[in-house]
């Protein structure tokens, strides 16, 4: 029914609601688990430790971008500049570390901050100049796409002289265990983001702005300031994603990145965050990103012809989201 009005009562929820909430989140894994189970049965190559890490590894870049974007989308905004922005950050990382030969740590921090700077510009355009987020970040997407080529001279920057750089992604921090650092980075970042979103003022105002911007402003909160903060914060993840992708590839590829924004946003939305703002979670986003990467992996492992892979991917996403909707309706 169109107009179902959700209600819960005066008399309330504490225990019931919280338990129910947890349960729902667990159930959100349902689609992912079904997909996993299916591929495990369908192919002997799927259910292996090596393939699990492969799936996780392939989730890192999109996952990192998606986590940052989750904040933006919860405010009711959108960020299209994350894909090419990531390429620009990767190039900047090359400039800092290879061309300028800065110490690794300095270069990394500078790259992440550069991402934050891009986000800051987005935030200012959106919050102060009142340019719609779609336009502001679309413009940034174009600018970043061009600048990545300009700065790099349209050629990849190689980190061959910086073996420690690629270790950030491909190394194994845990000795003896074949578990790529990149995945550890993703997990750490996700935990930090999760804490920030649920336990801090930044997170609270992120939800609040997305839920009712006007009421938030009337409550004396400087919405402009916090919006800028959110975009700048999300920008840090663009910088980090730039590091993660170039560390994995051993080079900064200036032309890459276009299309990543759509994938990252898709991960966020599949994870249950509403594009109209006000609700969403980091766990959901990670599940969304994992659903996409597991499907990509599994379909290829099953040797489905590539032209059919997208068709199936599309249908499975539909079904996954639809069952999620049904589940929530019943819960």
């Amino acid at each position, binding site marked *: 029914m169109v107009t179902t009005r959700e209600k819960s009562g005066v008399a309330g929820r504490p225990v019931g609601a919280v338990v129910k909430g947890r349960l729902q989140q667990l159930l959100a894994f349902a689609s992912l688990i079904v997909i996993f189970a299916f591929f495990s049965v*369908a*192919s*002997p*190559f799927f259910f*292996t430790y*090596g*393939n699990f890490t*492969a799936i996780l*590894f*392939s989730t890192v*870049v999109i996952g990192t971008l998606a986590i940052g974007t989750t904040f933006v989308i919860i405010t009711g905004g959108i960020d299209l500049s994350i894909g090419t922005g990531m390429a620009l950050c990767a190039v900047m990382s090359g400039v800092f570390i290879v061309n300028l030969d800065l110490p690794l740590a300095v270069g990394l921090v500078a790259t992440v901050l550069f991402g934050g700077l891009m986000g800051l510009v987005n935030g200012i355009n959106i919050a102060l100049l009142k340019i719609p987020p779609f336009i502001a970040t679309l413009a940034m997407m174009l600018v970043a796409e061009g600048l990545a*080529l300009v700065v790099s001279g*349209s*050629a*990849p920057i*190689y980190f*061959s002289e910086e073996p420690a750089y690629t270790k950030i992604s*491909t190394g194994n921090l845990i000795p003896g265990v074949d578990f790529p650092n990149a995945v550890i980075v993703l997990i750490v970042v996700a935990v930090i983001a999760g804490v920030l979103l649920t336990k801090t003022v930044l997170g609270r105002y992120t939800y609040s702005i997305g839920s009712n911007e006007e009421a938030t402003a009337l409550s004396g909160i400087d919405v402009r300031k916090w919006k800028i903060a959110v975009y700048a914060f999300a920008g840090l993840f663009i910088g980090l994603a730039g590091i993660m*992708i170039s560390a*994995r*590839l*051993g*080079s900064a*590829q*200036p*032309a*890459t*990145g*276009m*299309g990543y924004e759509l994938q990252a946003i898709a991960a966020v939305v599949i994870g249950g965050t509403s594009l109209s703002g006000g609700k969403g979670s980091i766990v959901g986003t990670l599940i969304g990103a994992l659903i996409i990467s597991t499907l*990509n*992996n599994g379909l*290829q*492992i*099953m*040797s489905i*012809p*590539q032209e059919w892979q997208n068709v199936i991917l599309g249908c499975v996403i539909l079904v996954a989201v639809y069952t999620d909707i049904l589940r929530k309706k019943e819960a």
Partner: protein
Amino acid sequence: AEGGGAGGGGGQPYIAIVSKGFQHQFWQAVKQGAEEEASKQGARVTFVGPPTEADVEEQINMLTNDIAKSPDALGFAALDSQAAEPLLQQAKSQDIPVIAFDSGVDSDVPLTTVSTDNKAAAAEAAKHMAELVGGSGKVAMVVHDQTSQSGTQRRDGFLEWMEQNAPDIEVLDPQYGGGDQLESANITKSIVSSNPDLKGIYASNEGSAIGVIKGVQESGKQGLQLVGFDSGKAQVDAIRNGTMAGAVTQDPVNMGRQLVIAAMKAINGEDLPETVDTGFKWYDQTNVDDPEIAAVLYD
């Protein structure tokens, strides 16, 4: 090598091919050659590639996934050699023979490289362009990509030949249309209207070529010398009817075939030459119907 790919075809050798692209005609022709040869030899192939030649990470994921299937041999056209190196080492450690194709993979893992020299092919196109415009005047370039190897080599091969051999020809800054026909057509029209004295346009792949042909037709400009790259029906038609002067084509179908042949040899432990050159050919109105040319054209 042990047989048995994923799901069925018991005993059939399985060759996994990770290409630089998928949807585009060139890669579809490679795929077609590989599949034909595989069915002839009783092998099974899968063929995957990222949507654009900028999607390096996606290609790495695809390579990872294909290695997970423990194929009997791996065909690989690297978008970036360095990014793939750890995976190639992994393949080596798993005793999966790797055959490089299209462009060289900067690594000692591949047993052989089935390739085509993009730069030389582009130089060939430049040579014909110089002849067509009579050794002097303005020439424009519509290139499909400014970062991928095929894009840069086909651009640089053309530019370098011109620089060295035709000093009187002024080559305008390359414009990039992403290989998208419509975008290339729009770019072409802008070039034509802003350069009334233009004498020729070079297009670096099939999509660019179709775009250039369309753009010139729509602008109504006569007498421009168009030189293309690759084949495909629209381009071949344009050459037949004189809209386009000629084009260089590589032989992607053969590339696919040679790739599978080399892979089968590797599986059977036979020796392989260091490189297999699949070559390129210039074709124009005069020779388009010659059997050896017709054989390398795909549409």
